[in-house]
């Protein structure tokens, strides 16, 4: 395959960025999107140019490192995959592909296609945990049976990989899908009940402080989420928040 890549290049946080054209050939359908980027980078290095920098690590859709806005869509045109799991067979010979970083005020660009998503960490630090010490004598794991349905739903929420595609997909750059997934995991489990009121309030407060936009229920996040995190989580977060404010 021959492709025409248009890639966002930006030296560092302070510099202005721009789209640069990179024609490329010899791309095979079996390559992942990031392997295609590897091929480009190898070419650039051999020519003495600076390679395009992008975040990645596990390359199997679980660490949440990879990002990339591909032709306007976070993680590209395929559904339920991350950029590292996207394969070039989804593209056609001669295609033009525009590759940009995830865009959001709360995700400033570090360089090229790499953004700073530490705002997500801070939301979780604000309350995304259960306060239990490591003692070796907590209760037996089977002491509290948990309804399978609730456990499965908690698991579905917990599979969020913290990639930020939901934010990049949203016209308001809202982090509601992410935050709601985190809140839901704990809200659905008995262990999470004790701190439920503080948790939802603190996490939502931090989310606002970070400069994420408001949720206007467009649902774009759910469509682009590589892990299929459902909008039901946002509804649950809203319920939790409402009941917390009435209680608190």
């Amino acid at each position: 395959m021959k492709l025409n890549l248009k890639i966002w290049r930006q030296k560092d946080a302070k510099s202005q960025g721009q789209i640069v054209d990179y024609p490329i050939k010899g791309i095979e359908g079996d390559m992942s999107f990031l392997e295609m980027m590897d091929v480009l980078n190898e070419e650039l290095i051999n020519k003495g140019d600076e390679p395009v920098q992008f975040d990645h690590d596990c390359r199997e859709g679980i660490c949440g490192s990879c990002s990339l806005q591909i032709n306007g869509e976070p993680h590209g045109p395929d559904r339920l995959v991350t950029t590292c799991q996207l394969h070039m067979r989804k593209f056609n010979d001669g295609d033009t592909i525009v590759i940009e970083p995830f865009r959001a005020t709360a995700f400033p660009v570090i360089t090229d296609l790499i953004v700073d998503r530490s705002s997500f960490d801070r939301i979780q630090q604000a309350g995304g945990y259960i306060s239990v010490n490591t003692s070796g004598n907590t209760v037996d794991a089977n002491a509290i049976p948990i309804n399978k349905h609730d456990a499965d739903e908690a698991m579905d929420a917990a599979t969020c990989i913290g990639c930020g595609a939901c934010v990049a997909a949203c016209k308001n750059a809202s982090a509601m899908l992410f935050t709601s997934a985190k809140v839901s995991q704990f809200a659905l489990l008995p262990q999470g009940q004790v701190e439920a009121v503080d948790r939802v309030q603190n996490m939502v407060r931090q989310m606002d402080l970070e400069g994420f936009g408001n949720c206007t229920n467009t649902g774009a996040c759910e469509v682009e989420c590589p892990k299929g995190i459902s909008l039901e989580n946002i509804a649950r977060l809203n319920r939790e928040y409402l009941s917390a404010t009435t209680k608190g």
Partner: protein
Amino acid sequence: MDSKVPKGPLAAKWTQHKNDINLVNPANKRNIDIIVVGTGLAGGSAAATLAELGYNVKTFCYQDSPRRAHSIAAQGGINAAKNYQGDGDSAYRLFYDTIKGGDYRSREANVYRLAEESANIIDQCVAQGVPFAREYGGLLDNRSFGGVLVSRTFYAKGQTGQQLLLGAYSAMNRQINRGKIQSFNRHEMMDMVLVDGKARGIIARDLVSGKIERHSAHAVVLATGGYGNVFFLSTNAMGSNVMAAWRAHRRGAFFANPCFTQIHPTCIPVSGDHQSKLTLMSESLRNDGRIWVPKRMDDAIAIREGKLKPIQLKEEDRDYYLERRYPAFGNLVPRDVASRAAKERCDAGFGVNKTGEAVYLDFASAIQRYGAEEALTHGIKNPDEKEITRLGKGVIEAKYGNLFQMYEKIVDENPYETPMMIYPAVHYTMGGLWVDYNLQTTIEGCYCAGEANFSDHGANRLGASALMQGLADGYFVLPYTIGDYLSKDIRTGAIPTDLPEFDDAEKTVQDRLDKLMAGSGQNSVDFYHKKLGKIMWDKCGMARNAKDLQDAIDEISALRTDFWANVKIPGKADGMNQELEKAGRVADFLELGELFAKDALTRNESCGGHFREEYQTPEGEALRDDENFKFVSAWEYKGEPKDAVLHKEELKYENIELKTRSYK
């Protein structure tokens, strides 16, 4: 080598040791700093627990968030001797399975402690809100992994590592929120600083600004994961590396059993030269998948040429070679055995993909079995074949859905309809920094946990035991043993970073970076990494022999010289530069690789994942030599890897009788 294993009967050692060691009082803990490098399961759990106890903790990881450590990718599960299934499990049985699985090359006392602590891990994780899979009654579900006859593996779909890591990360977050952990993300440890022979800090590079930083502490914990990427292609994350452990090795920490590497039998085969990493298909699939190749050569050839489809092959024309060779364990033999058996069939010409390096993992019979079961439990009378298949697929999807989806995305074939193709790939490293019973390396004050140490898995790790070990080390072992060491440091006060030792270490790091940047610019870093990987795979892989290993040593040494003279790193060192990061890692792999080959050459026996062609039984099974090699090889750094000096820790088996491993 003094392993510092406490005296007394096996089952009492750990409790007795905890009672005997010194504690640090809460007020003094506030004056003690600990650096934890790595935030995977081992580092994340250690950091959270140490901070809970009151120490001031600094964590480091190269990713942008602790939550992205490689542990996140673990799929299948975590072992614990809970005996919830009532199938006869116990701490002793888990201990026994682990020692046997490791082919009698691990330390009894450590492994017993691991088995003892395993149950606590599950309790702890559930308390943190880890959503393990449950049965309809609301209790925890289990599955089986290879090399054992009980069902003791806990899991969270195919994302167990993710859920456990998020648990440890949430525990870290709680401490970050309390100000007890400072986390330095996008930071790489580049050297260790020793003051009066003790580990007192590290030199790290801020990967965003490129700045070299000094960090001091009273003790340093390395939990930096495994070095499987020395093979270039592996199931590890792209950034997994040996730098931190290797830098400590150069400063005096002995490196143990570097050649003990696990080649995992069920990975998606290589598809071409562009391949950047390999993807694991979890061992849990071997609970239900049956492994086979065609019985007849002409069928194998027809399949390779695309003229025959696997589903067209009749039962009697298939060779379920694991079930044939190992009737007792069948598809659930340990990984090293399963991998060699796949290689044996493929080398004999029965491989099923274009390159001839793949075997089938087939779910058709499981789909039928589950389908029939479902029909029965749902009261469906006389279900037709279609209905059974539909129901069976549903069960398989619930169990392994995300793995099947992953497979389909990569291979572009539907594994519900046609068997998966799999082949062995580098997955885990049992070797690592030598540690004593307290997890202390040969450098005082430098501890090592998780995959980065060598401790518990001998020559072969059993499935679902790495997560267990990482969390046991971090939650339940280190917090005690490190306290014993730190009890001597309560009057030391903060360690200043302007000591000459910090100046020296910083200069070493800076010189190294300058030297890397000064390469003549002939070849990219990946060029060297791929070459190294090929030498490793061809000559230090699933089967090794003396001649190949000697060649590997010479070739790696020459490649290293070439690398330093000719590597090409664009850009500058004073900002984000991913090529420079890679170069630093590959430079260390080029040293480790040589030591790896030397270690394999020295070990004139076959055991676990280390298979020397010269030492095998007539049936092709590994031939161990307990008389001469019942020891841990601990290598001391002396400059070039070829000059490394071997120290031996003799292994004593007082509670288990040494036997030839048999899974027949």
